[in-house]
């Protein structure tokens, strides 16, 4: 086992990383004086992992498998969720495009709850009837999200831009794909993805040295043995889609809109991270609340709220300019025009944006869940949280004409009469 202490010179935060020969990683992030302690067990298996190769054999699994497992994996030999809750832990889990995470926080019986959390991938206890019943609960969840107008609008655009890549599918899958998820599918996913080299245990709070030592010494054997891991594949996407306007009708007073641009996927995980910093600064400069675009259209009453975001992952990179308001078509035209000839020359302003990002980075070290979430998200993308600041400071904001070249669409949901 290799032990490293990593320090961030600006925030003076630090953590200790334990790397095991099995590929498993344990991170201890000390936070003195906090009442709660928390543990996040994550696996690099998310909604976009639908095809791959495991032990030399190609496979494909239904949409929504990772999320389905998240619902069922607390059922071990005993109900782990209930047992941890009864010990006083507040327990939860989430699934994103590229990871699944199970976590809890508690001020008492931390090690006992952690022992239960670590059982999650070891002996799944879900049954065939239990899997069938869960389909119904997840169907409720899918419908709940479909009733969210903003989510529906954004997702419709994403589905158009990514007809093949699974980022275009709902994280929970579809009512149809749920029917194809059974116990065998779940068993396969656990065996092929829930392996030590694909997992991170992140613990944060006010721990003594002894507590950490005990956690390391009592790690179940499962995490120490090397196991084969699945490699995911992502389908090649077509990039010759024409710009489309995708309209849904609903009886709502203000339209919800998402202007999406599909960008080439990054060649490596680090390149993707660098690109995300670059786009964060550029989008803030062009469309952020202090930008000329934002001020002009807000004062005209074109939108009620508006935000710009870049998201990326294996095989995809997408910019979304989303919001709600009464003049979506004016905004569609204005966004297209701004993206066509972006003006990114004001060095002074860019320095100010960087200064804000530096402050926000520091401000991000208050919340245990915020730190754990950011760390986990970046870890599964091969990036260290403390790399953010040096990289951000070094970023030379690119203003070349290809920044926003890619297939695009404008998805909106509005009243028929608008």
């Amino acid at each position, binding site marked *: 086992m290799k032990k490293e202490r990593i320090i961030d010179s*600006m*925030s003076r935060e630090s953590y200790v990383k334990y790397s095991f020969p099995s590929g498993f990683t344990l991170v201890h992030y000390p*936070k*003195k*004086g*906090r*009442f*709660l302690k928390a543990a996040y067990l994550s696996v690099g298996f998310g909604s976009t992992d639908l095809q791959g190769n495991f032990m030399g054999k190609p496979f494909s699994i239904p949409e929504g498998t990772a999320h389905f497992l998240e619902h069922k994996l607390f059922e071990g030999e005993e109900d782990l*969720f*209930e047992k941890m*809750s*009864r010990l*006083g832990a*507040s*327990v*939860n889990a989430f699934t994103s495009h590229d990871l699944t995470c199970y976590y809890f*926080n*508690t*001020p*008492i019986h931390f090690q006992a709850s952690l022992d239960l959390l670590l059982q999650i991938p070891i002996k799944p206890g879900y049954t065939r009837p239990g899997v069938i*019943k*869960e389909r*119904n*609960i*997840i169907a*409720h*969840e899918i*419908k*709940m999200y*479909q*009733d969210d*107008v903003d989510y529906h609008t954004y997702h419709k655009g994403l589905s158009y831009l990514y007809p093949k890549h699974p980022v275009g599918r709902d994280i929970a899958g579809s009512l149809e794909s749920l029917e194809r998820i059974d116990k065998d599918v779940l068993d396969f996913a656990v065996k092929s993805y829930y392996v030590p080299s694909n997992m991170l245990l992140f613990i944060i709070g006010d721990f003594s040295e002894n507590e950490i030592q005990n956690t390391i010494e009592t790690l179940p054997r499962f995490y120490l043995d090397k196991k084969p891991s699945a490699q995911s594949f992502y389908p090649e996407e077509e990039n010759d889609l024409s710009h489309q306007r995708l309209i849904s009708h*609903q*009886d*709502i*007073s*203000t339209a919800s809109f998402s202007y999406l641009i599909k960008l080439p996927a990054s060649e490596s995980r680090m390149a993707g991270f660098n690109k995300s910093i670059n786009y964060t600064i550029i989008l803030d400069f062009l469309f*952020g*609340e*202090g930008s000329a675009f934002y*001020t002009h259209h*807000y*004062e005209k*009453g074109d939108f*009620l709220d508006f935000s710009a975001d870049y998201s990326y992952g294996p095989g995809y990179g997408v910019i979304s300019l989303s919001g*709600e308001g*009464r003049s979506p078509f004016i905004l569609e035209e204005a966004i297209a025009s701004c993206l066509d000839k972006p003006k990114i020359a004001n060095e002074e*302003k860019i320095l*100010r*944006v960087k*200064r*804000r990002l*530096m*402050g926000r980075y*520091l*401000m991000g*070290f*208050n*919340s*245990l869940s915020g730190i754990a979430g950011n760390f986990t998200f970046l870890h599964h993308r091969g990036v260290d949280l403390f790399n953010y600041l040096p990289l951000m400071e070094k970023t030379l904001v690119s203003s070349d004409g290809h920044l926003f070249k890619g297939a695009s669409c404008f998805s909106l949901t509005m009243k028929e009469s608008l």
Partner: protein
Amino acid sequence: MNYTQWIYKEGFTTKLTSYYYILPLSPKSATLGSLLARVLERGSQDYPTVEAIHDRGDELYGATAYFDVNIYGSYLCFEAKLLTPNYLFFDQPELEEEAHSYFQSLLYRPLLEEGKFKENIFLQEKEMLAQDMESLLKDPESYALLRSMELLFPDSNLGIYKYGDPKSLEQLSGRDLIDFYRELMDAPLYIYHHGDEKRNDEGIKHTLEMDTVEVSLQEEKFEEDRDILQSILVKAYRVPWVYGDTMVYPSLVLNHLLGGSGTSLLFKRVREEKGLCYSIYSRYDRYKQLFLIVSGHEKQQHQELLSTIEEVIDSLKKGDFSLEELEETKQDLCIGLGSIPDSQGRHLKDSFIRDLYAEEKDITKRMEEIKKVEKSDVIKAARELSGALDLYVRKA
């Protein structure tokens, strides 16, 4: 009229300052408060444009000044907050004073023209607030909760939404807004600072009392059709005790046992055992003397959902829960209380609300009160629940 408190805590990378102004609540004052919050964020004499505000915030390493309104019990609260990094990390402690000047400029030196807020900004924000009010109704659950309050408290301030209402908004003039701003500047003010400074409290606390809640004896049922995929149910139950009563602690325990967590009876029986929904929870509001149960579900399972909820409530009235479950529930609540100081925002808000209504502030003492709750207290609380509303927002 002001009261200032410094909450000292090490280990945070930020500093938070919250100003809470207290005003009488009415549909008009709530609407004016939410409009004022928006107008103040549009500019001050020193930072006359949104761009200037943002540029200055950026220079101050992302310092953010923001304004909002809230309703606590029967009072309107106008909130002004400043969140900054702890500038010691940048070896620039002098920036803290500059950040406070920035905040005070936005709050105390607003952009005026001929003695009123700038007309164009007033009109733009009035229009935006109207759109915001309509937009809120897009979310089925938010709509159902808002509608429930209107139905439960038709003639009382307790039914007012924190951002006011469209009718009041339509009638507001620029003169109303500047008059409201002046009234606000004379209102009782509670100031809380969170950070690494040790200072004594200053000023005098003005504690207030809540309006009395009228308890109706009959449950009212309402059904509405909407263009949604999932139907929403809101069931409300009233309890006779007020916020300072000794029954508040048993009520907190009852709520947590009923639907306050992922191991609550409603979650286990309605979702886990019967698979009737994805989301179901309960909430207890001690100021409104109300329990709410909220669920999203399929239309065809509505009757089964209703009867399962009734079964769960009946089981609580009969005391069909173990002492172990009771102890675990109390433990959860104590942990929730104990974790308040882990968050700057929660800590300041909790301190303010407790000061406002002169409720017990000491977290350890509140934990003790929770620990004292016995099974018979919870049964007593459950037996006092009286059905007040059954709102069914149905998939059309």
